[in-house]
């Protein structure tokens, strides 16, 4: 039963780590902040597609909710080696 999360920055950090662990997100610091956000948005889209969520690329409530569910440590995407 979902309860809404509060702190945005903390959530962003959590989401980054989640995407790094399970969706092969690599945070490459580039000169353009917008590009960074784009890369993360792509990974969020991939994760939303996997879980059957509405694919928005945005870190919304439902997406965060699934990220916070206890889960298996094996990544969801093929890059696992």
């Amino acid at each position, binding site marked *: 039963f979902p309860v809404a999360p509060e702190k945005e920055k903390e959530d962003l950090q959590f989401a980054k780590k989640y995407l790094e662990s399970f969706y092969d997100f690599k945070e490459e610091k580039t000169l353009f902040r917008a590009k960074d956000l784009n890369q993360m948005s792509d990974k969020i889209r991939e994760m939303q597609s996997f879980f059957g969520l509405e694919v928005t690329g945005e870190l919304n409530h439902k997406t965060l909710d699934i990220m916070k*569910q*206890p889960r298996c440590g094996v990544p969801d995407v*093929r890059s696992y080696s």
Partner: protein
Amino acid sequence: TFPHTPTWKKEDVTYRILNYTPDMLQADVEEAIARAFQLWSSVTPLRFTRVYNGQADIMISFASGFHNDFYSFDGPGGTLAHAYAPGSGIGGDAHFDEDENWTKFTTYSGYNLFLVAAHELGHSLGLSHSNVFGALMYPTYMPVDTRDYQLHQDDIDGIQALYGPPKESSALPTKAFPPQEPTEMIPAEAPTETSPREEPTETTPSKPPQRPDDCDPHLTFDAITTLRGETLFFKDRYVWRKSPYFSEIEHDTIFSFWPSLIAGFDAAYEVDNKDRVLFFKDDQYWAVSGYSIESGFPRPIQNLGFPTSVRKIDAAAHDQNTKRTYFFVGNKYWSFNENTQSMERGYPRKIAADFQGISHPVNAALQKNGYFYIFHGSNQYEVDIKKKKLIRIMKSNSWFDC
């Protein structure tokens, strides 16, 4: 599957349990893991044999934080376990995060080792994650009833794509351990001693009635309640869950949410400003907040002000605006003041007197968006709460988009 589709190139696969979690009896750990292997051996030609020393194909261990591979565990919650695709060395091995509370049964105070082990062994055999909700290989933990757990068709399709179906003669359980059915049930929180009905009645796994189809025209409900914005429909041990977050109806069992509650409620209602749902069964009721059952329950319904002649109630619905809860019993109904925690004077009254056109007994009742929905058989009556005026009659399962 994983890149390059790694599989075991043999049918006899060995496993070894390297250490144990202090959360469970050793025998229970061994049984949970043996049952997990048996799930996969029952649908493939694979046979699993436990060894007690030396290198096995699948080495199983419990560890916290950093444990000598590149995937450190993260303390309680979050990542529960991981496993490696078939291969030599670490290949096939399964690691379980010791910072979790591992349990033998599905409760909400821990993680069912059988369920998580079955998932990780899927990886050990070469399956990656599935995006089919409800499949064992779905990445997130889903506390479900494990007494007669069956693999999802998606899991079976996946593993048989790697190893084929079982050969007739080899569809037997694992050599090392015969699987054991759970013989006792430990409720998440032990019920109080006061009531003679502490023990759940479903202690032997007899064949449970099938869940009726969502759109079965004769579908009736035992009880219905809202819960944190969602709506739960109860019938026997089954729950239909309608959530504003997901479009499709989710099917669960009462056991998977509240393992210590007995299936087959009579009534249920939510007092949302207290984040509290009350469940009624015979002459007792329970209060839950989310998943946890409030201590001191079950309590006799007489505590609410019912006379001893009332042995059970049919349905209940709470009106958020007036803070009144209506209890339907036979051809009468009571009004309970949640603020004063007492029954109102002048009750019971005849249902027919105030709710024209509504048949009784009432099976279930729901309050939503300022309306009461009163269910009798396969009909539900939408009633304007303020005016107590019947607005329309619908099919009981109209909530399921039939």
